[in-house]
């Protein structure tokens, strides 16, 4: 039986490689998992069990470049991670479970995870018993190659710590898994700070903002304070931004001056205006304009589709980017600024001659957190020289681009999840 098993496994499953840490890690990025039919728990409904495991895998996906997909059809040997419940001697495993108490689950190198069904497993936030979600996240951590980590707050602690509220991956656990599989990289459609005015109970007007990154049909809220995305992100675009194209946008522009305060989304040849108050795109704005509108109508002289755009409050212009050209649009004059379009190198010259994106920008993002404009392209970004930079180093060119850095070293853990896990 063992030899047979070894031949099957060796033939059909890609071998694990030892990353430089000496811990084993999968060498592929999309992993299949399955709750084994004869291994269902007798304590929770099957749907609950599968939902909890889907959530557990998603939590690892939110902090690593790995995607997990539940596969209930393929032959078993093609499944990377198999989960099952059992008591005592179980599922052909050589390590017997010890009944209620002590050992509640274990995981094996080849991706098998067993749960002791003599334990009282409960759904998340049940407030009693042992949270199946927490145990599943821990055991999946083993299968992915993480050892026990005796650090308070780590999900890889061997002893179970009751959790009074939802638990999440802390910073060190994220770094541990990223040490094995690398960080999350990828192109963005746009990045922006969404600003809203609200009244405090004292009638004071305050302005709040959040940072958002968008990629295809989903988006992340980025918590600058915590250097990570919001727990549970990404979320599908249509959930949080009603009325804009569900498969993603090209640009987000916030025209904000003494006289204007308007937010626009751009996609293809059209643009939409966003209604902050009602948190959805206008069909007809207070001035009577109907949306979506053609970009050529709303911004004469600007061609479409565009790569990206941003509004520069210093000169009240919208800078549209398309291929190697930049179109500066004077909002007050409602026309292209004189001399535009220009080559991007002329508008945003490199500070280091060969270090320049040379067009086809993914996103132009003005960050209130950093008080700086960033041009993102692929996995890199270039920060635009700001007034403070030029105050300290007057020789820097106006709107010069500082040498590039990596996006994932500046904004952390903006990770995809498998589309099937998106709607959890």
């Amino acid at each position, binding site marked *: 039986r*063992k030899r047979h*098993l*070894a031949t099957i496994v060796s033939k059909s499953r890609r071998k694990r490689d030892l990353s430089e840490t000496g811990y*084993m890690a999968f060498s592929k990025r999309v992993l299949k998992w399955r709750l084994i039919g004869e291994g269902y728990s007798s304590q929770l409904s099957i749907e609950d069990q599968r939902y909890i495991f889907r959530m557990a895998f998603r939590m690892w996906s939110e902090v690593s470049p790995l995607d997990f997909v539940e596969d209930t059809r393929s032959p078993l040997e093609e499944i990377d991670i198999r989960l099952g419940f059992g*008591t005592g001697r179980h599922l052909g495993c*050589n*390590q017997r*479970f010890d*009944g209620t*108490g*002590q050992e*509640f*689950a*274990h*995981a*094996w190198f*080849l991706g098998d995870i067993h749960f002791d069904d*003599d*334990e009282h497993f409960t759904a998340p936030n049940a407030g009693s018993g*042992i949270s199946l979600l927490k*145990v599943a996240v821990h*055991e999946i951590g*083993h299968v992915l190659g993480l*050892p*026990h*980590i*005796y*650090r*308070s*707050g780590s999900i*890889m602690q*061997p002893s*179970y710590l009751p959790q009074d509220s939802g638990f999440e991956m*802390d*910073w*060190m656990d994220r770094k*541990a898994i990223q040490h094995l599989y690398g960080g999350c990289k990828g192109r963005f459609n746009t990045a922006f*700070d969404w600003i809203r005015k*609200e009244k405090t109970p004292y009638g004071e*007007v*305050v*302005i*709040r*903002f*959040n940072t958002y990154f968008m990629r295809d049909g989903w988006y992340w*809220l980025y918590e*600058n*304070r915590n*250097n990570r995305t*919001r*727990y*549970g992100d990404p979320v599908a675009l249509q*959930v949080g931004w009603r009325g804009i194209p569900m498969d993603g946008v090209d640009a987000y522009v916030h025209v904000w001056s003494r006289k204007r305060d308007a937010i626009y989304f751009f996609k293809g040849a059209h643009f939409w205006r966003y209604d902050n108050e009602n*948190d959805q795109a206008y069909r007809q704005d207070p001035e009577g304009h109907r949306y979506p509108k053609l970009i050529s109508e709303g911004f004469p002289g600007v061609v479409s589709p565009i790569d990206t755009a941003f509004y*520069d*409050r*210093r000169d009240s212009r919208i800078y549209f980017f398309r291929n190697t050209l930049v179109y500066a649009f004077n909002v007050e004059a409602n026309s292209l600024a004189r001399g535009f379009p220009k080559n991007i190198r002329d508008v945003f010259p490199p500070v280091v001659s060969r270090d320049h994106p040379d067009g086809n920008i993914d996103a132009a993002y003005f960050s*209130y957190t950093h*008080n700086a404009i960033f041009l993102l392209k692929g996995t890199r970004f270039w920060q635009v020289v700001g*007034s403070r930079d030029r105050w300290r180093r007057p020789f820097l060119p106006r709107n010069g681009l500082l040498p590039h850095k990596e996006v994932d070293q500046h904004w952390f853990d903006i990770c995809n999840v498998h589309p099937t896990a998106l709607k959890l």
Partner: protein
Amino acid sequence: EKLFHNRDHSDVQMLNSHQAKVITDKHTAELFLSRYGFIKPVNWEEIQFEDSDASFNDDFLGDLKDTIQEGSSVHRSRDANLDDDRDDRNSLTESQAFISALKEFQRVSGLPATGVFDEATKEAMNKPRCGVPDNEIDLDTPENSTASDTENSTNDTFSQPDSITASNDTSRNSTDLYDPIFNITSPSSSHDINTDGQMVNISVNTHQSEAVRR
């Protein structure tokens, strides 16, 4: 095969009768320490196989582990002369191995590393836990890790606002931490960081953030 009679499985629940062995004395403690990798069994390194087929290893070693854990659990160096001083050396090494393993367990469990099998240690051993051994203990233990403030230290690399106020963002179905609060009506902003019109006056509110729920 379990049979489900009542829809709520209550009859099955009654069947769950076996309990894990509670750790009450030195012998069960030693078993615990062996099982979870704090005590290495005899010549552990020698008998590990070279080939890379881990499952084979585990199957074979698994059985062997059981026997080893029940039997002697004493370290032996490869070239020790096994015959002539086995007994006295064993008894001395055995208690030493137990104490050092116990200390290691106490240390990683955040207990005083006294090497004494006291109540706190017993309680820690009896907690529900993962069945994967700890022999790959990560050095990242509380003493030499400043993890709790790493996140903040990472923040240092950014010109971070001092604090943040959360608000209910029903349109995003979440109560979130939010970035700095702009108070455009309070002229005396303590954090006036720009003058070139690209930014607004930013004053930073001192409210503390609320806990975040997914």
